[in-house]
């Protein structure tokens, strides 16, 4: 069963990806500080404070989240992860995206070959509905379609 949500486009793009979901703030530095280096080639999420995401793989996923938190390296870390091919393909925010997340997405759009599509303001219902592993389709106009086997 598919369900559609409409958000605000921060960085436009068409993306299809598998959902990775956190209901608490995504700490970008704690999650991706070594992603892409020989210490963490696979892009495993390393924030032990976030049990929903700890040790899950980030590359190419549709990261569904309320907001990012923590260090102001955040946007830069997203830019690095994207440039090294271990970033999310898109970030889908239930709330308005914060300055660090927007910075990361905007940097990838302007300076990297691997832009992170970013849609925000999708509403709390989006984050309540989406489940890890759901198939996500993002359209340039900010429409996000969620399809999964666990939605009855």
């Amino acid at each position, binding site marked *: 069963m598919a369900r559609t949500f409409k958000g605000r486009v*921060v960085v436009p793009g068409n993306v299809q990806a598998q959902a990775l979901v956190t209901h608490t*703030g995504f*700490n970008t*530095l*704690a999650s991706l*500080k*070594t*992603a*892409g*280096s*020989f*210490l963490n080639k696979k892009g495993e999420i390393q924030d*032990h*404070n976030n049990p929903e995401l700890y040790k899950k793989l980030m590359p190419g996923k549709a990261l569904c989240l309320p*907001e*990012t*938190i*923590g*260090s*102001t*390296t*955040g*946007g*830069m*870390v997203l*830019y*690095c992860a994207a*440039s*090294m091919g271990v970033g999310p393909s898109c970030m889908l925010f239930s709330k308005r*995206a*914060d*300055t*660090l997340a*927007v*910075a*990361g997405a*905007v*940097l990838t*759009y*302007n*300076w*990297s070959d691997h832009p992170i599509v970013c849609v925000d303001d999708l509403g709390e219902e989006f984050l309540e509905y989406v489940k890890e592993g759901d198939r996500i389709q993002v359209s340039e106009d900010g429409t996000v379609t969620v399809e999964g086997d666990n939605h009855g």
Partner: protein
Amino acid sequence: MILNEELKAVQRGEQGEAMQKVLNTLIMYGEAFGAERMVKITGTMGHAVIGTGSLTWKPVFDLMEKLIDGGALPRQSFTTDPRGIEDHVPISFASKAMFKLIFSNQKRMEKQWKRMGIKDDNAYTCTSYMDEVGNIPQRGDILGWAESSAVSYANSVLGARCNRNSGILELMSNILGYVPEFGLLTDEGRKADWIIEVKCKELPEPQLLGSAIGFKCIEDVPYIRGLDSYLGTELTQRVKDYLKDMGAASASNGSVGLYHVENITPEARDLGEKLIKENARTFVIDDAEIARVKASYPVAWTSEGEPQMAFAGCPHFSLAQLCDWTDRLDEGLKRNSHEKVTIPVIFCAAPDVRSRFEKDCPEKAARLKEIGVTVSGLCPLSYTSNPLTDKTRIITCSNKLRYYSKARFYSEKELVEIVTGGDING
């Protein structure tokens, strides 16, 4: 976005392609938050968040190269975050070799910073606003800084205006000399969404109170009541240090970029309750809440056993804190009948603060050496980015370090007791 004539010329490419791209990046960033114009940076110095030449950050250094080659250089001098390691910090041969790999871009980065006009070789600290370092914004200054703890301090304690800018964006702001006007740069954006009432029996430790505030407010602005009953109403060095540590914890455990403290911080003193939004929610932090927050921290050590190393000074200590902590350890050693600390202890402080400490307080500096404490300008977060050092059972009273590493958090009192041979369960 409405641009003035100077920026319109930049947009037309009159200052080169790199500058044009920098401007377009900042416009896109600002427009996402409804910014309608760019405002001039009025602070006299920038502050960047990149102090370690991490392997993972190679794309950043490649981008910096493009900026330099394109003639897009900062308009003003700047300080930046601490280096990752220093030679005199105790470390195994294997860990040292690993650090060489992990920080293999250090020389490249420092060379780039020099070409971009960094203040000097000592400008690597997260507390650039210390008197000894001298990057101290004035009230009302518009800044384009990054480093969550420094942004929090500049906004809250100094009354400057700065958004929580990301690394690279802070550099681009400094290059353009303008930042998009939104959020914490506006009067409305500086109003409080939360009233935090501190009702503890005694003054809570700053890093625990800050953590509790960060968990509750996430990125909102809190108006904190009750702290003046413990701290008084003057912004003394002791109060500034307390707020520095509290703010760093709320900025890293949450995303708080600005807080007001009733009767203490400059805007709260001038505007009082006018800073509180009409629909602001209230949250009480008492001893039970502090205990609940502390008990919620995950234990991340990879092996059980006795602590092997301790860090204090994240964010970097002030001169007064270095002196105070020397006395606290001394008293602890006397109390517990030990001559030296029981594990290596690292106190972190800005290189300029450390120099002043050695110059003005030679007896205390010598005493720290004698009891086995190293004073370093490094960033403990970066120190733990090495998988070998990260396996070390580190203890800390820094909630920022606790969050970003496997270090185990203890209160300041507990940490002093542990490293001086006491028993915190006794």
